[in-house]
């Protein structure tokens, strides 16, 4: 158990180190915070619940329309981007990146991390 938590913390810390990432969190599919890089846990909890809802709603909408499971949800605003990807049936991974960050690299890192998270929780 302790090992899993350590590995999770490492995964989050590594992802946080990727260029442009402001904060990131691992969240359970039903909206509970697993681990985050945010200082204020209470903020992180709301953030977790909202991200899980967003991804869940997007996945429901897309599959209902026969378009399959979406790869990710990207929310863009002038202040930055929020990206949520599924990480297996139990969890998802969310990052907030600064607006000038290129998407290519961060999506790659995020997918890699999501795969690891999925394996970690199996």
């Amino acid at each position, binding site marked *: *158990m*302790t090992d*899993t*938590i350590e590995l999770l913390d490492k995964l989050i810390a590594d992802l946080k180190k990727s260029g442009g990432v402001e904060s990131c969190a691992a969240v359970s599919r*039903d*909206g509970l915070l697993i681990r985050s890089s945010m200082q204020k846990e*209470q903020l992180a909890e709301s953030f977790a619940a909202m991200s*899980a*809802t967003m991804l*869940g709603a997007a996945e429901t909408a897309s599959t209902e329309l026969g378009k399959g499971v979406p790869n990710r949800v990207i929310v863009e605003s002038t202040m930055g981007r929020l990206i949520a990807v599924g990480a297996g049936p139990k969890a998802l991974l969310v990052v907030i990146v600064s607006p000038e960050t290129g998407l290519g690299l961060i999506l790659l890192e995020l997918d890699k991390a999501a795969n690891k998270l999925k394996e970690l929780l199996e």
Partner: protein
Amino acid sequence: MIETGIPKLDEFLGGGIPKGKSLVYYIQPGVEGEVFGLQTIYNSLKKGDTGVFVVSSTIPDIIKGQFRDFGWDISKFKDKFFFVDAYDSLIGAPSNEKYVVPNPDNIEAFSKIIISAIKELPPSTIVFGSLSTIIDLCGEKETMQAVMTWNKMAKIYDHVLVYNFTAWPYSEESLKAIKEDMFNAVISVGGIAERVIFGQYFGILKADWTTEIKKSMLFRVLRPGGIKLYIPKILVTGPFDSGKSTFVHALSTRAISVDRLGTTIALDHGHVDYKGFSADIFGTPGQERFDPIIKLLSGESMGVFLIVDSTNPTDFIRAKQMLEITKSYGLPFVIIANKQDLPGALTPEEIREQFDLSHDVPIVPVIAKDKKGVYEAFEVLIDKITGGL
């Protein structure tokens, strides 16, 4: 009797720890357990008792800083709170504390100081900050012998002894002796990975002065605040326009909602800190077209508030259906008879009849918009979740 100050634990222990008894917090490595000893001693100081803290793993000033981090002001207990400094001599630093162990790696020297404190002080709460560190320095067998002596003496001098013990891989016999024989009470503090909730819990393994309650509680450690019992998810559900969002906001210390055109379309999320409990509240939408989202968010709840509009009995069928959608049958739930201020509102008893509910289902009358009854409802649900003592 002294109280541990840890929410629910005193209730589980039949009021607290009687004078002359010993208690060990048996802590899994990697879990934030040291705070248990700190919270216990702070609480007994607050109640006017004398307290002694035995520092083995760091300098006393760091421990004092930890008290401050938790928001516990120990400066006002100066003449009632003493440290046994079993660290500074190790690093060759001078110490200003009342009791100083000159050779903390020698159990006889250690024991001499502890015994003189036991003899000199009025009945006190004596907390060992880290029994494991003493074992590491002085050896397993030697330390265990000394602990037995201290516990025996505490009985005669009416002290309460509390130990923080981190269960590193010591010998099987030692761990077993600590868990089963050496102390009057053992509280295990550990971590769980229940599906994906990573939490920490405590539970009573043993308490020889009361009937043992084998109940575990999730907790989290807040700075400031200390140990709070943690309920990761309480679901608030109910038909359209029954007042779910209003209820979440009335109950929560802080809450956010995703609503458009006056109705919740995604969820309400709130956080409650109340009477030593820390809980996260998830409010679902009520309208049928959002059912997929309700299903998505309702997993892993520990309890449910089902909100009904007391003036609108036609909605009761939908309310029952929502319990099914959220897979909440079997979970502790409380029915919130909201909008009690409106004309034509049914009483809880009338609702029970309409709903065809048995008598053990609690129905709490509430006016969510005026925050009336919401905390009562919270207490009722918490009691059901924690086993209602």
